[in-house]
């Protein structure tokens, strides 16, 4: 089997908004980055530490993906750092809003390419790349966090069954 799809269960997801960083200047976001223990990535990039992943979604806008934690600790731990960072900031737990999928294997990029218009070749979507884009007409966040041929996909819960069925169908010829 050259491609495998799995459901990454119960991840903690938080959407982070920092109006102070909209122009790309992360100078005053130190308290938030210190609380997360990672560097917030720039356009089209991801960064990670341990099991925690940050994905750039737009100017001043990130998705945080962390280990399962029912206590809401990630969101709560950002309240004070956000206050120290400036006005119009937010961290909202969106764990229930998305299903997290992982497509792995030598043919993973080819399967995705059946329904995704961005160039997934290593030269333009290498390790540490991310994109908020469309996959099979569904709105997704797509990332390739590290060197392996593994793509992580965040999709709205209501679109997840459709997208999983589409991925399984697209992968048939690669089994």
């Amino acid at each position: 089997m050259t491609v495998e799809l799995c459901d990454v269960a119960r991840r903690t997801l938080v959407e982070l908004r920092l109006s102070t960083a909209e122009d790309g200047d992360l100078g005053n976001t130190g308290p938030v980055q210190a609380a997360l223990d990672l560097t917030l990535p720039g356009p089209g990039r991801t960064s990670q530490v341990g099991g925690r992943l940050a994905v750039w979604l737009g100017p001043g806008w990130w998705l945080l993906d962390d280990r399962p934690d029912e206590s809401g600790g990630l969101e709560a731990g950002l309240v004070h750092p956000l206050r120290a960072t400036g006005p119009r900031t937010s961290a909202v737990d969106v764990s229930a809003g998305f299903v997290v999928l992982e497509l792995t294997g030598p043919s993973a990029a080819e399967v995705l390419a059946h329904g995704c218009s961005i160039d997934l070749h290593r030269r333009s979507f290498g390790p540490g790349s991310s994109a908020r884009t469309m996959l099979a007409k569904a709105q997704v966040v797509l990332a390739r966090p590290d060197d392996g041929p593994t793509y992580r996909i965040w999709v709205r819960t209501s679109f997840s069954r459709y997208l999983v069925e589409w991925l399984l169908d697209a992968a048939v010829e690669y089994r």
Partner: protein
Amino acid sequence: MLIPCPWCGEREETEFHYGGQAHVAYPDDPSAVDDAGWAAYLFVRDNSKGWFAERWLHRAGCQRWFNAVRHTVTYEIAAAYPPGATRPVIG
């Protein structure tokens, strides 16, 4: 058609939402504008053949509005820039 988002780079046209003519300024003194003036502000737009500055929303990507200068005959896009920036001189 690929549209160059100022933040995300070139993306497929289907990721974007069209927003009509750019740089249409809100009236300085709204209370002084008569019905004909409001109608012109709200509904009357240029219909130029050639370079045209227009608004686009990167709906499926960074969800930001920006402006682009597009050629209405060839669909070539000469510039894309954040809202608030002045229109670049093309040609």
